[in-house]
């Protein structure tokens, strides 16, 4: 009021008045800007960057234990080696909170960490097998509802161990162990034997009519690969060491590995796919990016030929014949001849066609395997066959929609139309036959 009095009352010249108005508005603007405060501003050193969360059942019944992999920036991004010479420390801190719901538990995190969690860079969401078997629906809600977690975060189920133990797993290469898992997921296309599923993809597949979702599967293996002694105790998944993610006997470190796929029915985990079955699934759903497939064309063990898939396309064609749903899966794949262990020359049209046929039957095998498994044992339509009917034959779909997975899907006749092509056989042409003495193995 006083200000305006000054402005309008005693304005001597035009310029003076203008100056006063400018001053007044500047002060008012400053007040306006300064009073609301920095509502969502938070310094980076007051944020805890969560890269991965693991969700387990807590010991108390009805409660959740949520574990977080938080980046320790000072150790991960340090421009020069940290002083003290303690050697390379782990770049993350894994901590857990418990709560009645996912949100409830996560809300308590800053009490433990001393920093407000930042979910914008959450890249990996892990559920324990036990939770997944009971259904993920209740937990997915907050992940979809809350704006902070990205939908492009990977969604995986911990196979045979707690989600927390995966987060605590060891990584040889990365300071942030989650990055190894992420790398494995991103590089799935190298061999296409594991499924890389995002939260977004999972939600889509779950909500799609006529489809059940699949998630990535992560397990703990001994450092260096799956065929370590620990793996010998086959079937004994409940081994205490593995369960808790501790170092196995003899001090071997356990590292997380993405392998196979977790198959759901609606939101419940119903089973695991092994590597070949997973590739079968990927063949059907057009997600094979590359693979190495070994065929044995000259039957009789005279030598294996390894083919490298370089391009693969597939398409599901739904048909309804006489009221019965049929499905044709068209797969076309191009391959390079990558390696041959036989001394014979494969450099003839006949041999090349032979190889193509072998490749086609190998692909067919993989697909058959997984289709049979899904139809007979799991009874879940992870391929989205139903979805194609929903899209192509919406009217007939209405009748099938309710009972699709139990009444129709197991009996769908799946035809395979596999088309393969051998593109490149390498510049050396025939094998190094003069020097090759072995007969192949």
């Amino acid at each position, binding site marked *: 009021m006083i200000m305006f009095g000054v402005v309008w009352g005693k304005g001597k010249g035009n310029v003076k008045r203008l100056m006063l108005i400018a001053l007044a508005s500047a002060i008012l603007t400053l007040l306006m800007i300064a009073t609301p405060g*920095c509502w*969502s*501003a938070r310094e*980076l*050193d007051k944020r805890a960057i969560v890269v991965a969360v693991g969700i387990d059942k807590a010991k108390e019944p009805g409660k959740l234990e949520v574990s977080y992999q938080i*980046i320790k*920036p000072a150790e991960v*991004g340090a421009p020069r080696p940290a002083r003290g010479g303690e050697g390379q420390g782990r770049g993350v801190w894994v901590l857990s909170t418990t709560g009645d719901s996912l949100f409830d538990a996560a809300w308590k995190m800053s009490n433990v960490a001393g920093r407000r969690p930042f979910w914008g*860079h959450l890249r990996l969401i892990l559920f324990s097998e036990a939770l997944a078997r009971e259904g993920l629906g209740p937990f997915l809600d907050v992940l979809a509802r809350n704006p902070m977690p990205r939908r492009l975060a990977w969604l995986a189920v911990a196979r045979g161990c707690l989600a927390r133990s995966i987060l605590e797993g060891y990584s040889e290469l990365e300071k942030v162990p989650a990055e190894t898992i992420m790398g494995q997921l991103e590089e799935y296309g190298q061999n296409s034997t594991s499924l890389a599923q995002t939260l977004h993809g999972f939600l889509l597949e779950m909500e799609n009519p006529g489809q059940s979702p699949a998630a990535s599967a992560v397990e703990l293996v001994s450092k260096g690969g799956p065929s370590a002694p620990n793996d010998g105790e086959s079937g004994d998944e409940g081994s205490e060491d593995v369960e808790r993610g501790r170092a196995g006997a003899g001090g071997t470190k356990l590292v997380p590995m993405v392998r196979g796929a977790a198959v759901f029915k609606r939101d419940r985990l119903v089973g695991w796919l092994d590597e070949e079955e997973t590739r079968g699934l990927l063949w059907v759903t057009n997600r094979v990016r590359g693979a190495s497939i070994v065929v044995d064309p000259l039957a009789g063990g005279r030598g294996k030929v390894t083919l490298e898939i370089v391009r693969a396309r597939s398409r599901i064609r739904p048909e309804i014949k006489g009221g019965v749903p049929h499905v044709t899966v068209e797969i076309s794949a191009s391959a390079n001849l990558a390696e041959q262990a036989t001394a014979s020359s494969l450099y003839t049209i006949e041999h090349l066609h032979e190889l193509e046929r072998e490749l086609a039957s190998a692909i067919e095998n993989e697909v058959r395997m997984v289709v049979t498994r899904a139809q007979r044992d799991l009874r879940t339509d992870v391929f989205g066959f139903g979805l194609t009917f929903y899209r192509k034959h919406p009217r007939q779909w209405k009748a099938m929609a309710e009972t699709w997975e139990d009444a129709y899907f197991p009996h769908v006749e799946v035809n395979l139309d596999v088309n393969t092509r051998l593109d490149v056989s390498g510049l050396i042409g025939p094998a190094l036959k003069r020097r090759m003495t072995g007969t192949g193995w």
Partner: protein
Amino acid sequence: MLRVATTLLDLLRARKKPGSKGSPRGRAGEPPVHVLRDVQANAKAVAGFLGEPQDLVTRTFKLGGTKQLECGVIWIDGLADKRLISRHILKPLMSGAFEAQADATAPRGNVLEFVRDCGISLGQLRAVCDLREVVSGILSGDTAVFIQTSGQALLASTRGWKTRDVEEPRGESVIRGPREGFVEDLRTNTVLLRRRIRSPNLRIETLTIGSAGQTQVAVVYLEGIANPKVVEEVWARLRRIKIDAVLSDQYVEELIRDAPLSPFPTVANTERPDAVAAGILEGQVAVLVDGSPFALRMPVTFLQYFQSPEDYYVNFHTATLSRWLRLVALLAALTLPSLYVAVTTFNPEMLPTPLLVSIAAAREGVPFPVAIEAFLMELAFETLREAGLRMPRVIGPAVSIVGALVLGEAAISAGIVSAPTVIVVAFTAIASFSITYPDITAIARLLRFLLLALSAILGLFGLMTGFIAVHIHLLSLRSFGVPYMSPLAPSSLAARDILMRWPLWARTKRVGYITWQDMRRQPATSMPQAPVRRKRM
């Protein structure tokens, strides 16, 4: 007959631009003081006007064989060229041959005319009646010649003071291209322009500004190309200046520019005659101010500031690249610190994870918020820059080493500021120096702080708000009737010049938003071609 016609023409012109022609007068409205018929009285009066200064030289002698007529020659030591005076005024007037002739031919009372016609061998010579005019002539280096019994004085142009040589312009040096820069002397500067544009249509019109300073100001344009309305407006605005003295071009700029409160320059300045010539050919009007080695150009548009004169001295591929670089540099100089602050404190999810982790690592243990940190570093840099300007050349490098290297490195290793902030501020500084014109660099600096404050408070939202406000302001500006953001808004085909420097043979027309007259620069067939191949014999 011819003379009458010329005078009439002069009168007409003078009417069109009152005050533009004619001689510099004292304050308008003061009655003229007539030149007296007595030499001594005149000399005294002149000395009286000037307060009897020591550098006023009065030389009196007797004229004519009979030595009856007293003659006085008055000039200011240092302003007038002594050699010219002695060789072309004193020597002929005092020589015996002249005296004999004078006695023989000159009728009494008309000696002045005789002296003018046969005595003084100088190019510029005029007879004046008003003593004030004589004084102002003397003050600009002329020499006054009084002759007894004559009610007029002769003013001979003998200007010859010390001037700086034409040197390479300091602020706008180029690697390839002419290395001449304007100097403080107006006449030299107009010569620099005339030598580039020899067209008879090049108009150089002068007026005097400043009741005390009496500074010569020249308006230069190309008749037939410059928009006559713009020329008229420039004249009108120049005539409106009533300041006591104009000490540099900035005085004139501030007194005639559009949007006087805006930080954006609506009148451009340059110390390169070639840049001015290019502007004149594009239809701009140049204003040269005596005593200032800068020329003003108008009308100007914002995007012209990204077109360096060097663009046209290197091949168009390279020039196009530098044009892009300059645009990016401006964007960086304006927004980089604020973007950094906004993204790291408000929207860290926008950064790739490894980058975020690196920044977070550097931030660990830094005592200030990013915004304060960035602000402090900007402040430190500005201080360094300011210090570098004032510093004697000898210790300049020492200051930059201590300031930039030692201070920066020590601040980082002590953990007081984080390395990314220093990188951002340093890159911003470099980017701001890669903008061609210092005017724009200064604005970028100013707005940088504003945007930094906005983004520290409101994040990206604040940054965008500030950015949009600046744009709205830019769009509201005009320079002598030309919208400041032409040719973007209002958009025209000439906008193709912004992102590319087109080959010279493709520039067949003038840009079209500065002037509308005589648009054709060259025929459309200017692209060089190989001769048509002859048939092999």
